[in-house]
Structure formats: structure tokens, C-alpha cells
């Protein structure tokens, strides 16, 4: 059975700066949790604290209920995969994977057998005798994963494991990682800034920003039902429109008056009439119709199975929507009428720091 990880009010301070601020989190047995956030949000600091590379300023780390905060790194028994791969350049791939068993002084036959087993799992057995420098980036990272798993750890930490790789390799490897860890049934903490990667591999996403947990939930929940503007914006693309609540429909949906006077309907919400709000609607939930919000097409981009159309609406907001690749796309300069799938919109209070500040990525 894979262990459960509990974080109890973890903080990590560098000088006066809180890289991680009071984070509590439970990771269940065998769960695949992704810690997602922009650069500098503290996500890497957090897993370095969990794996014992750093000691937290405050708080405790528990594994299966046992406090391991003071257990040194080498005794925590957690596999760790680095962004820059960090395979030992002086050892062959096989010797790299054997390293964990070797430093635990397992019997030599067992070291070899284990290493071969894990190399086979990542389909790298035929490269066992080569040195890491002779492999491509993607292959190296597979060996690194085998190495992290070979000492039998039931917890795996992935520290931006795909960032250094080509986009296309990244896409293949993320599916492969998920397949492997699920097969072994281990608990995984995966750090990334790539929301697509996070969505496609995890059981649960923890969205971090400025050292704190911003939102957490299964990919489906967090995509369909984000709890903040930042979450809506960061995870998947979205259109944001500013306006004021002007009333309610019979079904209790929110009517929002946008800039320029156009009124649209959005999902139910708990605001009062006159409140300043922001509507979030994803491009795939925006359609053209005979009547609706007037918008001028700015650019049209081919995305494979669909066209992405970027427009400026009469309200001054930017709005994007998709058109099937089988249909004719509009041309820049065309006028279109846009409507939303009301059920798939979200209404948020307009943030005090302004919309720009609320979605700032840096």
C-alpha cells in the first residue's frame, strides 16, 4: 500500500520572504497530485520541503501519520525526479538505476535484477549500457524515473520533470509517466507550471500562487467550476468580461450589464444588484448567433481540428471562440454576433486590485 502524505501548516521562509506560507494538504494513498502554479509561486520549495531536501521554517510533514520533519533526506525513501534530470554522468544508465539498491547494500544479483526490471518498465532496457550523455532528453528522463523508482520508494516526487523537453516529447511522456505510476500504485506529487500537463495527468490539482494554495480540486472540477478568476484564467483559456449585476432571470440566473450597455445572462450567483463582477466564459462555450454581443474579428488561427477566432467585442473586451475546422472561418475585419452557453459561465466579484492584477502571471 502506498503511503499517505500529510502537510501540517508548512511554512518556508528565506530571509523575510515566505516562499511557502502556511500550507496544509493531504495526499491520499496512491493519489496523483499536481502542484501547479506560475514561476516563483513556491511550488518547488514545497516539494523540496516534503522530500526533506529543505527543512521547513514552521510546520510538520507526516507520512502515514508519522512525523518525518526531522528525518534526513536519505532516510525518507522518496523517489525524486529533477527538472534538469541530474543523471550521474560518470555512470552508465544501468549503474544509475542500480545506484539506489547499491547504496543500500542489497545483494549484487538483486541490484542488477531490480535495475533491469525498472529499465524495462520505462522501455529503456536496450539502452542500459550507454551513458546518459548518449541519450536524448526524453530518454534520459525515463531513465531518471526508473532510477527514482528502483529503490522501491512508494512515493515519487516529480519536480517539473518535463520542462526541459521538447513540446512533442513532453506530451508523449506525460501519458507514459501516468501509466507507469498507476501500474505501480504509488503516491505521486508532481510540480509543474504547465496547466495542460497538470490537467492530463493528475487525480487532483493544487493551484498555488505567491506561496499559498489558491484552489484545489480534480481537473474536471477546477476547469468547470474554478473558485477564483485566477484559477479560471490559469487553468485553460478563458474570456473575462467586466460588468455590473443588473438583475435576475426567472430561473435565478444573473443578468450582467457589460460596458457599453449590452446585457448578458450568466450562471447563478450570490451577488446583489449593482455589484461589480467579472464573467468568465471559455472559448469553447462561445458561439456565433443571429443576435448577440457584436464583435469584430481580429485574427483567425488554425489549431488543427478547429479555428481559434479572436475578436474585440463592442464592450471593448477581447473575446475568443472556436469554429470547427470543417466550417469556413470568418476573416479578420468581419463582424460577428456572439452568445454564451449560460450554464458554462462563472461570475466572480471584480477584484479590488483590478482584473489585470488578479490574473498577473509573473
Amino acid at each position: 500500500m502506498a503511503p499517505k502524505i500529510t502537510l501540517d501548516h508548512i511554512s518556508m521562509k528565506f530571509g523575510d520572504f515566505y516562499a511557502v506560507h502556511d500550507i496544509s494538504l493531504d495526499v491520499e494513498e496512491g493519489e496523483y497530485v499536481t502542484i501547479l502554479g506560475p514561476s516563483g509561486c513556491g511550488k518547488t520549495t514545497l516539494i523540496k520541503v516534503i522530500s526533506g531536501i529543505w527543512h521547513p521554517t514552521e510546520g510538520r510533514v507526516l507520512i502515514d501519520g508519522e512525523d518525518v520533519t526531522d528525518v534526513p533526506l536519505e532516510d525518507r525513501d522518496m523517489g525524486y525526479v529533477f527538472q534538469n534530470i541530474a543523471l550521474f554522468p560518470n555512470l552508465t544508465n544501468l549503474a544509475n538505476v542500480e545506484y539506489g539498491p547499491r547504496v543500500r547494500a542489497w545483494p549484487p544479483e538483486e541490484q542488477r535484477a531490480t535495475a533491469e526490471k525498472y529499465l524495462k518498465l520505462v522501455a529503456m532496457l536496450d539502452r542500459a549500457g550507454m551513458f546518459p550523455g548518449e541519450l536524448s532528453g526524453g530518454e534520459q528522463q525515463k531513465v531518471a524515473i526508473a532510477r527514482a523508482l528502483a529503490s522501491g520508494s512508494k512515493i515519487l516526487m516529480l519536480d517539473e520533470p518535463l520542462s526541459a523537453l521538447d513540446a512533442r516529447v513532453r506530451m508523449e511522456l506525460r501519458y507514459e509517466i501516468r501509466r507507469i505510476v498507476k501500474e505501480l500504485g504509488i503516491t505521486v506529487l508532481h510540480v509543474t507550471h504547465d496547466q495542460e500537463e497538470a490537467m492530463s495527468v493528475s487525480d487532483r490539482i493544487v493551484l498555488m500562487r505567491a506561496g499559498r494554495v489558491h484552489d484545489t480540486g480534480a481537473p474536471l472540477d477546477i476547469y468547470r467550476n474554478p473558485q477564483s478568476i485566477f484559477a479560471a484564467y490559469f487553468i485553460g483559456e478563458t474570456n473575462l468580461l467586466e460588468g455590473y449585476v443588473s438583475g435576475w432571470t426567472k430561473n435565478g440566473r444573473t443578468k450582467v450589464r457589460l460596458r457599453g450597455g449590452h446585457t448578458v445572462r450568466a450562471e447563478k450567483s450570490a451577488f446583489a444588484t449593482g455589484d461589480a463582477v467579472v464573467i468568465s466564459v471559455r472559448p469553447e462555450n462561445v458561439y456565433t448567433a443571429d443576435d448577440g454581443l457584436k464583435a469584430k474579428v481580429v485574427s483567425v488561427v488554425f489549431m488543427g481540428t478547429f479555428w481559434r477566432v479572436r475578436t474585440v467585442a463592442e464592450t471593448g473586451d477581447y473575446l475568443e471562440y472556436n469554429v470547427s475546422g470543417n466550417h469556413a472561418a470568418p476573416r479578420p475585419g468581419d463582424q460577428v454576433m456572439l452568445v454564451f452557453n449560460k450554464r458554462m459561465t462563472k461570475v466572480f466579484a471584480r477584484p479590488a486590485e483590478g482584473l489585470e492584477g488578479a490574473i498577473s502571471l509573473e
Partner: protein
Amino acid sequence: MSLFVRINAISDSAKVRKAWFGLVCAIFICIIIVPSVFVVTKVFTDWGLISGVLGDSAEMAVIGRAVWNSFSIAFIVTILDVVAGLPIAWILVRKNFRGKRFLDTLLDMPLAFPTAVLGLSVVMFWGAPEGVTIPGLGICFSPYLMLVLLHIIFTYPYMVRSLSGILEQIEPNYETAAMTLGASRFTAVRTITLPLFRAGLVTGTTLCFARSLSETGGTYIALTLMGCESSFFTGPTYIMDNSGGALSGPMILISVIMILLALALLVLVKAVITHLHVSGNRVWPELGRKLSRGFAPKAKDALALFFMVLFVLVPSFYLFVYLSEPTAMDYGTLLGSIGTSFLVAGVAVLFDIVFGIPLAMYIARHRGERFAGILDNLVNIPLIIPTTALGLSLALFWGGTASTGAVAVVLVILGHISFTYPLVVRNITGAVEEVDPAYEETALTLGAKPLETFSKVLFPVIKSSVIAGAILAFTRSLGETGATVAISSSVNTVPVYIVNLVKEGAASYPAAAMCSIVLIAICFVLMFAVRAVMHRGSDRDA
């Protein structure tokens, strides 16, 4: 300005750049490399002189012992430096603590001390030389041991610097990765970091070995103070003892032996360290664990620090005790010799910078290419050759050992260029290698010509390293005795003056000590001034 514009314009031409680089290479070969090893040719041209010595078995025994002393001392010193230097290098690179900067500066100080001064200071501290009123520990009376103690001081900083330089380049994630796999720190370091460390060991060993082999002034002073300068020799002091007169067979012979042995040994060191396969398959998890935590690592750090303080710092500074007994001295001669020293060092360093930068840039930017590799190895030759032998060689090349006046000063400057040039080139090469070539390339694509690219983009970035290299070379030149004496006995630089004072006997020791203190003070003021200037610059850039 218009000159700059004109040069800048023609710098765009590949032919002009090639011609300039060709000139630099020619200067490097003709002024630095060939004169340094010229003495070897005397084996063929003046065989008569040498065969005479070979027949003289008494003389041969002295020469043999001198060579043995030099090499065995260098060997012992290097080993001690590695063992004691590694923990300190580690602390300097991987640990953060208050006072780290202070430790860093402290470590560089012995480099600013002329070795002749160190010789004085060390013998006073460990021994009890006759006629010296300052009390010493009085526990060391063997010249051999004394020289080991002395040589540790000026080789140790080189070792720590090279080791920490390499350590900085080794990805710390390797060690962390090993530890996440269950290795204790001791095991991780032994199986992963140390095997990656070989390049650092080669550089460190080369530098220390060469430095110990060449050292003359301090060694000579130490031997004189102990009263055995004419019974106990190292290679360099033997040459020094015989210099100043006509060209003699023993001098040539020992120079050639020293040069050839040094070159051979260093090739060997390189080969052994690079190809040595240390089997790290066996691990002892329990032992590793014990050595990684609690008392053991602390004891190791404490021991290393203790070594550094007792064997390096305290003996170097012991001389300052003389401040308690000020003495009258000949300020006129001292000032004159300081002037000479600064003239020699200044001109040499200026030359090094002007002709060193192009070579360093070429080596750094063409890593892995054959010609650059050859140049890189050639640059180190003057560093490896004992400076006394180098001085002799140079004097022979430029026409005789008995020159005087301005000619002698020029020859001394050329000599100092030979052994400071590698220091400057090495420093700048390292700096240029760290600068992403994308800076210069981007400037070129933005329309800059090669000279502007250098002056506006690359030079401002490497400036601090150029200055650091210049300081290193300058202090090295200030402290050199052997080469100066071997080239001409009439050029009176400060170390030569100090050696001469010591030669005069016990009565002049206080004066020698005061001279040393004045020289050190000047060096420090200079070093701190430059550091302050650099610091102001780097506050803005960092």
C-alpha cells in the same frame, strides 16, 4: 576616438582579425614560450660544459639531492594541500554562514605576501633562528620539514581556489539526487561528486606542484636563517647560489633536469588522475551514515579550519610581531626597490592583459578544437617551469646572464611576463567561458562590429575577472625572487633587497622584517582599493 572608429571598421574583416590573432600567437610563442625553455637547447650546443659536470660525482650528488628535495617537498605539500584544502573548498562553496566573505578574503592573503617575507615569518614562528630576538615556537630545526611548512602556505590558497572553482561547476543536484536515492552524504560524495572532481584535482595539483617547485626567495631565506644555505639545496636555490657569474655547467644541467622532470611529472599526474579508476562499487551504509552526521563531519570541518589557521594564517602573519620593536632602516634604498618592483610588475601585467585577452578569448571560444587545446596546454608551460630555471633560460636567450642597467630591467620584465602571463590568461579564459556567447552574437546581429562587440559587451562583463587576474599577476610579480636573481643580480626589486638584507646576517633581520611589512601594507592597500572599485561596479551589475 577616430582611431577607435578606424580600428573598429577594419575589425569587420576576417583577414584583419586573423592577422591580429596571428601577431598575438607569434608574440606568445617568441616572447613567452621559446625563451622559457631555451636552456634545454644548451644541452646540445654546450655539451662540453655539461659532460664536465656529469663526470664530477661529488657535484652530481649535490645536484641529485637538490632535485630530490625539490620534488619530494612539492609532492608532500601537494598531498597535504589536497587533504586539508578539500573540506575548506567545500565549506566555501556549499555552505552559507556569517563571515564566509571574511574567510574568503583571509584565504587570499598569503598570495599577497612576497614569498621571501613568508620565509622570514615562517622560520621565526616554527623555529628559533639565531640572532632573532622575537621568540618563536622553536620546535622545528630540520630544513626539510621547515620547507614543507613554508611551501604549504603559498600553495594552499591555489589548491583551495582550484578545488572550489570546480566544485562550483558540479551540479549540486547530483549529490541531492544520490541522497534522495538513500545514499548518506558521505557515500554520495564518495561515489558521485569525487569522481566528477578530477579536472579540479589536475588543475590544483599542477598549480601547487609547480608553485612549490619554482619557489626560490622564501626557500633561500628560510635556509639562510637556519644557517644551512650552503649545505642544503633545492633545485632553485642551487641555481641561485651559482648565478651571477659566468655560465656554468651545473646551472644548465640542473635547470634542464628541473624543466624536463616537471613537464614529465605533470603529464603523468594528468594521466594518472584522469584515467585512475577508483572502484566505488562497495558501499558501507552504516559507516557512511556515521560519517555523515553528528560528530564526524563537524570534527572534519574543525580540523580543516584548525589546519588552515595554524599552518597557513598564523605563520604568515607572525612577522607582524616585529612591529613591537620598530627599527631604523634605509628608506631610500627601500623606496628605490619598491619603485623597481612596481615598474616591473606594472609593465608585465599591462603586457599580460593586452596580449592575454585575445588568447584567452580564443581558447575559451574554441573549446574542443585542436589548436585551442594546444594553446591551452602551451600557456601552462611557463607556470610549470621553476622560475629560476626560467630566468636563466630567458637570460641565455636574450644574450647573457650578466646584463646591467636598463637592459637588465627589460629582461627582468620579460621574465616576469613569462610566469604571470599564464595566470592572467587562465583567469580571463575562465571568465570568458562563463559568458554566454549569445551576448556577443546578439550584438553582432544588431549591427555591431567585432571590436565594438568586445568593448561594449564582453569587456564590461569580464572586467572584474580581468582585474582579479591582474591583481594575482601583480602580487605574484612583486613576490618573485628566483627569476629576478637568475636574470640579473643588478635589478634590485623588494624581495631581492630583503634576501640581500637577510644574507647580511642577523643584525639586518629587523630591517628585512620592516621592509616586508611595508611591502605587505602596500600590497593590501592596493588589493583593497581595487576590490572596492570592483565592488562598486558589481553592486550595480550583480
